[in-house]
């Protein structure tokens, strides 16, 4: 890269939250954006939209296997070989059906892999390079669900809890470097992933607002960002509820 466009990499670029973050980034300034997705047709559509919004930006689309550790390593090495990265956003995930996970261990395994192990492998693949470059911000999308296991979605919560604990450790490791690690914990957000929750009448935050708060949190390099911010308070209460109260809750 000859110019000084900010270099951003998004894993899980077709996720609604990631897509809206990307729209905000390209609307601020022309960027050099690498979009990683499982399906290159869908990723290409996201890129086409961003290209219209920001013709000056540079886009690269990479199709990836999100499960295979070697493939992830190779992919990330390839990206970093072209120059050090300013922002990495690891955004992929899918909300599993808790009841199905309890019956079907394959579904359970997949949910844990996609939401927990895969994001951690991506982060780990970038972390070493970023540490060496001594710069950049690595952001991961966790979830408020990772703060305390609840019967309604603890498989997803466990995977996101893995991400939480991993991010915490990575923050510790990179504390005295130029690399910032940002853990984002969205509350339920209005995206295709949560369409069924909305059907059940849940009140969801708009994805535009959530993306705005995420982009702001990443710019500030905050270690933990709850979006919207009220979830920090709600989850503090939930984490500290004594078990005899918590076990009576239908949540």
């Amino acid at each position, binding site marked *: 890269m000859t110019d000084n466009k900010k270099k951003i990499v998004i894993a899980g670029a077709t996720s*609604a939250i990631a897509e809206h973050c990307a729209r905000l980034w390209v609307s601020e300034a022309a960027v050099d954006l690498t979009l990683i997705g499982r399906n290159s*047709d*869908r990723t290409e*559509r*996201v890129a*086409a*939209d961003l290209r*219209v*919004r920001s*013709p000056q930006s540079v886009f690269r689309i990479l199709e990836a296997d999100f499960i295979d550790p070697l493939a992830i390593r190779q992919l990330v090495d390839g990206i970093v070989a072209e120059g050090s990265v300013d922002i990495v956003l690891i955004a992929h995930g899918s909300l599993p059906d808790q009841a199905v996970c309890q019956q079907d261990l394959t579904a359970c395994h997949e949910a844990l892999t996609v939401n927990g192990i895969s994001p951690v492998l991506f982060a780990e693949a970038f972390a070493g390079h970023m540490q060496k470059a001594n710069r950049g911000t690595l952001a991961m999308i966790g979830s408020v669900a990772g703060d305390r296991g609840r019967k309604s979605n603890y498989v997803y919560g466990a995977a996101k809890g893995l991400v939480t604990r991993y991010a915490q450790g990575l923050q510790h490791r990179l504390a005295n470097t130029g690399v910032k690690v940002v853990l984002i914990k969205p509350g339920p957000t209005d995206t*295709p992933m949560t*369409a069924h929750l*909305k*059907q059940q*009448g849940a009140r969801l935050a708009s994805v535009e607002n959530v993306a705005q708060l995420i982009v702001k949190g990443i710019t500030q390099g905050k270690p933990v960002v709850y979006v919207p911010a009220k979830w920090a308070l709600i989850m503090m209460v939930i984490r500290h509820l004594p078990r005899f109260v918590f076990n009576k809750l239908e949540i």
Partner: protein
Amino acid sequence: MVAVSSWGRLSKRQHEVVALSDRDHVIQQLKSSRSGIAHGMGRSYGDVCLNPDGVLWNTTGLDRFISFDESTGLLACEAGVLLRDIQRLVMPQGWTLPVTPGTQLVTVGGAIANDVHGKNHHVLGSFGDHVQRIKLIRTNGAATECGPDLLPDWFSATVGGLGLTGVITEAEIQLRRVPGPWLATETVPYGNLDEFFRLADDSEADWEHTVSWVDCISGEVGRGIFMRGNPAHVDHRPEPKNRKLTMPLVPPISLVNRLSLRPFNMAYFNLKKRQAGSGIAHYESFFYPLDNLLEWNRMYGPKGFFQYQSVVPREVGREAVRAMLGEIARSGEGSFLAVLKTFGNRQAVGMMSFPQLGVTLALDFPNQGERTLKLFERLDAIVREARGRIYPAKDARMPRDLFESGYPRLKEFIQYRDPGISSAFSRRLMEN
């Protein structure tokens, strides 16, 4: 199931909402769905976007641009993209939507399905006049592309087709050059309907945008404020800061009522009269004055409101408008949101398009039940006699005979309907 209202907030019934967000997945979603209707921002006032106890295909997740050619102004996008997002994208590059309604918080799909119009109908027609291509998905899984030069009959059925011919998933729109985001405007008070028509006629040649606010308590006199504007080149003027207010709650009774209407209209007329003359306006405040007051529809209270928008032919326009304003003033109903505007002599693209040569009157009415509906019956009689029509996008109650007489191509249109699509409006006025 989710409770869904349209903009008029007249009902709040349960719907199964299916989010469309991946345009390759839409075919699958429609094929496996019960009968439904596409729903974007829900900005139509009545029931064209509702399907109680049935399915709504929410299109707001289909919000991607596909391509934009900065040299030709041809824009392709998914149907859930908001007009606001288009305007904000293209305005800095010297382009604009040729036709825009009074709110930019509507989707492209909704703008096509209702063939919305703006203040420049006499120059540029309605929204559908600028659509080059529509991608339509039928509930049997068939995907069709149509445009003015490709399956023009399907195009004509779909523009203004109220979403009943299939789900619009993508569109191409030919944008138009503008010198920038500003308009040179002129505000002219008028004392009666004769003056209004004279102003409208005199403005047709030299002004692209014309509209007027009519004081609905002035009755048959029909005094008001005429506003006209032209795109203008203005140097170095900072864009206005976007300050948004939200109507924070639904008041227990309508804030627009017999007590508030008279003083408000008096004050508004006199204020605007004093501001008469030339000015410069930003396009957002000129075209979308209400968009900065979010959820303003709440001000009509828990029972919601109707909008009554008719168009009557020009020959009988003056008499019909005079008669309608008389009825409204005698009833003591109405609101300060009252618009009187002439349409130009242009053949609409859509079989079911609303705009036609004549004069259109649009008024909000707080829902006072029977009393309001009785007034509408009297207005219907005037529209019927004048051989006019009512705008489906605003309607929640028009009688079937008026719908049929107002839309003579209805029988032709029905042949293009998708049997898997149905709305509260279509069941009310077209059997299914």
